[in-house]
């Protein structure tokens, strides 16, 4: 069975990828990152809307999640791409109109899932935190931003990391609307040469991406846990904190 694997192709693909492959890999990376980021923002707004006293906002949030979790992502990607016009962006590299459509579709879909994750994270924060903030005269928005969300972030990061892991692999669906990403590249190699090992090589690259992310996520979680551990901050940080309100805020928000 081992001899049936074309090691030559795998070796080439792993260690000597060419320019088009690099483009494809980059496409997978930036589409995942942008779509996940926008998805988190959308999910945050949807979560706040869901918790709002204004009932139309709550209803809107409910419909949004119902529709985008209840219909297949592939359908959403196709529909968005073909029903609307999308621009091609040139921002140092080219983002095709299909890639833009894919990012939008992936973001909207992801937001529907992030809403629940974020809402659960916010809910998990003790009600006393919000009460303390408000009794100090903070308005709801300020309390959410400065007190609740920074704490909720710790709870949200692990499931968010999971979502991002999925996102990197789900971007392969963009292939169906013509985006040249990792899977498309393997496809092309395969259809030219009929050597299926292109897919083994691309599976490896997906594994690389998801592994890198696992490390990044662990780092983020460690940083967020620092304040929970109650570490005393160092002298340099003290200096910075004393003279730079922005830094102090950033540390607080971590």
């Amino acid at each position, binding site marked *: 069975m081992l001899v049936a694997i074309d090691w030559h192709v795998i070796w080439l693909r792993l260690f000597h990828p060419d320019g088009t492959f690099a483009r494809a890999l980059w496409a997978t990376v930036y589409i995942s990152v942008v779509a996940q980021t926008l998805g988190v923002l959308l999910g945050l707004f949807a979560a706040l809307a869901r918790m709002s006293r204004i009932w139309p906002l709550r209803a809107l949030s409910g419909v949004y999640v119902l529709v985008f979790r209840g219909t297949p992502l592939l359908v959403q990607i196709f529909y968005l791409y073909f029903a609307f016009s999308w621009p091609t962006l040139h921002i140092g590299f080219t983002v095709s109109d299909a890639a833009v459509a894919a990012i939008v579709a992936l973001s909207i879909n992801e937001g529907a899932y992030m809403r629940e994750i974020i809402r659960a994270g916010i809910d998990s924060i003790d009600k006393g935190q919000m009460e303390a903030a408000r009794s100090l005269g903070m308005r709801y928005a300020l309390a959410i931003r400065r007190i609740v969300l920074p704490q909720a972030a710790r709870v949200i990061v692990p499931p968010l990391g999971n979502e991002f892991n999925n996102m990197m692999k789900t971007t392969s669906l963009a292939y169906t609307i013509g985006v040249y990403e990792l899977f498309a590249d393997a496809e092309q190699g395969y259809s030219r040469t009929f050597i299926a090992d292109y897919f083994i090589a691309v599976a490896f690259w997906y594994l690389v991406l998801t592994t890198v992310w696992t490390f990044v996520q662990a780092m983020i979680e460690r940083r967020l846990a620092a304040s*929970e551990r109650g570490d005393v901050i160092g002298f340099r940080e003290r200096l910075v904190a004393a003279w730079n309100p922005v830094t102090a805020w950033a540390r607080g928000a971590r």
Partner: protein
Amino acid sequence: MSDVVMSAEDVRKSFGKLEVLKGVTLDVHKGETVCIIGASGSGKTTFIRCINHLEKIDGGRITVNGHLIGYRQRNGRLVEDSEKNIARQRTEIGMVFQRFNLFPHMTVLENVVEAPIRVLGLPHDQAVFRAEELLERVGLSDKRYTYPGKLSGGQQQRVAIARALAMRPALMLFDEPTSALDPEVTGEVLSVMEELAHEGTTMIVVTHEMGFARKAADRIVMMDDGGIIEEGTPEHFFTAPEQERTKQFLSKIL
């Protein structure tokens, strides 16, 4: 009288069908320390939370410094006030919670300066100066860069007191501030509160600590079953209580 800081008139509050406050009337004057005592379920915590509108009242009125709390006069009727106004009213009322509710992702110093900077708009240096003074007063200057997670309950509560005082409120509310503390550390918190009382802070304290009430209160108020059943000086209470319920209650806890 113009030196009335807090005036509650016939305050009513129900949770669903359960009527918890059945018409509470109380005036607190500038510099007074009023202790509210009573069995659990008497409504004392609910009442104090109505003062800064953490609970909405269903009947009656509460004014602090002459401002109606939570509601506005409009065309002769009372309508619920805007979130902005309520937040502003709360800046004049400081609250210390039974479970401290310090912000765990911020250091002690950051906890204390947060609201003065973000809500009052105090410049950073000024807020820090004020905070350091207060931390000095509560005896925790050396912990300014520590995270709450590393502090004992008594230390956390003292920080909470400093945090509330940083807003320079006209009225300080204490909701059973030592009930969640180990006996060894209640002393340090109570002595801070006694000092505040002697310095002329206007305070309303819901507590079971009779020792504190005897030493620091100008007036003690006994609540039972949603109403005030007895009111008087500490001597009156501890030497000659009038109501049967009061006698029963005091005999149980003294």
